[in-house]
């Protein structure tokens, strides 16, 4: 996958931006390596590791057995002892196979060791429904990870952020999960060729507005922006914030927005109950209760496993139409 050098501006799909992010890290950091199932010879099932084996060789781009516990343990052990691993967890759902390494080892080791261990490990994983992949290949489990003190979690919503967040994650000396989205792989935009970071822990206002603030995560940012367009037609001007980072969460940017709009709607693809939206809602109330003119609302998936049937999956995944409805409801329209 050796892309010919083109003059700027250069447009890249999300999938190739991920590739470039990993490639940049492997070029910049001699102690880094990439390990995961089918990442080397096959270039990953999503194609985002294409060409990496060719460029970096089998010492640094490593096909592993189907052993998520082992793979994640590799990341913990190697990062604690001087390497900077990039671990690929093919589907976020497979967290179930390796949650001990993630939750009890990776996230806690530094603290438990009194600060004597440093774990600069980056985990790339793929979340999200929409492809008829059913209950075990479609989940959005970022709240599981964000609940772990010691863990950082980011959700790049577009190609630019995907590249920049992978680089930022790899430069961070903490464990960072980069939660990618499989429905976004073909989504293209301008992506600089040079190395750059998208800072972890900073939200960004994607669209300015005055009537209500939508805080969206991952691919839901695009649904929120669609909804914002539709709402223009009925004379509403909503602000859309891309949270980008789940842990740490950028409360300040959100609160500043709400002090302006006085209303908040949180959108994520994960199920509503126990989803990160509940936490954000609580933080807003703690910090900006007096500024609120309406209850904080949420749009999220219903409390069910992701259904296979396309008829149900369509209903399951939050979308722009649902956001429009909820915005109007919040505004009493």
């Amino acid at each position, binding site marked *: 996958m050796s892309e010919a050098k083109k003059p700027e501006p250069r447009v890249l799909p999300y999938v190739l931006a991920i590739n470039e992010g990993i490639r940049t890290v492997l070029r910049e950091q001699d102690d880094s390596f990439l390990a995961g199932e089918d990442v080397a*010879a096959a270039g990953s099932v999503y194609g985002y590791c294409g060409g990496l084996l060719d460029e970096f060789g089998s010492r640094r781009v490593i096909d592993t057995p*189907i*052993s998520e516990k*082992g793979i994640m343990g590799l990341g913990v052990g190697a990062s604690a002892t001087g390497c900077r691993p990039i671990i690929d967890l093919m589907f976020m759902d497979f967290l179930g196979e390796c949650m001990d390494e993630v939750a009890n080892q990776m996230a806690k080791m530094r603290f438990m060791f009194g600060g004597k261990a440093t774990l600069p490990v980056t985990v790339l994983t793929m979340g999200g429904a929409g492809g008829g992949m059913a209950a075990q290949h479609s989940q959005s489990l970022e709240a599981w990870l964000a609940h772990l003190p010691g863990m950082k979690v980011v959700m790049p919503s577009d190609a630019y952020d995907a590249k920049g967040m992978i680089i930022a994650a790899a430069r961070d000396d903490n464990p960072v999960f980069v939660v990618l989205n499989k429905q976004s792989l073909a989504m293209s935009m301008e992506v600089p060729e040079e190395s750059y970071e998208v800072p972890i822990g900073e939200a960004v206002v994607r669209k300015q507005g005055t009537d209500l603030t939508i805080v969206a995560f991952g691919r839901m940012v695009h649904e929120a922006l669609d909804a914002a367009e539709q709402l223009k037609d009925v004379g509403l001007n909503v602000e859309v914030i891309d949270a980008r980072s789940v842990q740490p969460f950028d409360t300040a940017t959100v609160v500043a927005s709400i002090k302006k709009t006085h209303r908040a709607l949180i959108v994520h693809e994960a199920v509503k109950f126990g989803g990160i939206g509940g936490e954000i809602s609580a933080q807003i109330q703690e910090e900006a209760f007096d500024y609120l003119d309406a209850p904080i609302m949420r749009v999220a998936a219903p409390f069910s496993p992701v259904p*296979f049937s396309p008829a*149900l999956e369509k209903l399951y995944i939050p979308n722009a139409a649902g956001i429009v409805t909820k915005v109007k409801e919040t505004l009493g329209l």
Partner: protein
Amino acid sequence: MAQAKKKTAAKKAAAKKTATRSTKKSVVKKSATKKVAAKSTKKSVVKKSAAKKVAAKSTKKSVVKKPAAKKVAAKARKAPRTVAKKGASNKGPSNATLKAMHLKMLRIRRFEERAGKLMEDGKVPGALHLYVGQEAVASGVMQHLSNEDWITSTHRGHGHLVAKGGEFKPMFAELFGRSTGYCNGKGGSMHISNMDLGMLGANGIVGGGPPIAMGAAFSNQFKGNKNVSIAFFGDGASNEGSVHEAANMAALYKLPCVFVCENNGYGEYTPQADHQAIVDVADRASGYGMPGVICDGMDVMAVYEAAGEAIERARSGGGPTLLECKTYRYYDHVGIRGMGLTYRTDEEVEAWKKKDAINSFEKRLIQLGVMSRKQLDALDAAIGEELEEAIQYASDSPYPTPDQLLEDVYYVKGA
């Protein structure tokens, strides 16, 4: 998607190991009428085998007949592991059994071919992992089971369900996501299941099945019935911790469980030589403390006999067995395309197709006078008609209704 890659040392080693693998296979075939004894050096292993089970002495070549109930100490260096014999049983299966196994294989093959085609035509959402090439394994094992016996399947699960008695109509309906499907359209290919048939589900999680099969075997033992459970899993899955934990517990509790490893030489796009340092998954049996058996997974009779022995042992309280069936998937990991792939050669595919389980078994059926070519063709045609009817049924079936989304998340009394 997959990139062309340079030949690395690992790749070359892989090719070498693959070669070893196919050689081994033919050895398995040739020594089919013999039981080859395994060796072991570890004293504790010897002790254990002595206390628990039969084992063999002597070198690989010698034939040791396993005494039915007697316990013989092992002096082998690899713990009890045998190569399954083929066609050595005196009381061969009846013609009805032969026909039933053939029917299972053919039904699986035609179902999968059709399903794959439908996926390519965009009629089936999601991912289909097809079983074409491996039919002998499901058919030979399932021939010994009733609906009371449990199986757990894999992401490549249609074949197991068809062999367990799955019907085409609700299967296609499930693949199409319709409410008339086995799982009301909520599970799809990767979660297709039927509890009434003793089928505890395909599984989207590699290595997800074996612990569940172990639990089902526990349930059978707990209730004191004679039912068994079978865990199907792949060579790739054999590297999951869940498989090791399930096998250890099954051996420890002497559960009526058979672990059937369908070694098709690849986990997704990674050849076996690149995902584990062993050639025979059955080697691990000694580490669990159960017999390990290898059989030719392209020969339904070999599978039938090896599985029969293991299942009989499980039913009669003799505990679990690890049965490794050497097999091959003709298609790609997902979908149909089988040839022109970067991770394996067309020659390799062709070589395996020459050993096709259905072709060779049909020849045998004709030779034995069990069925004529004409009867076989008629059967094939009838299956074809049944398939088209089922596809029509599935296409005409309704999708689940919105209220079904929140249904069955929990068991609700009286609902």
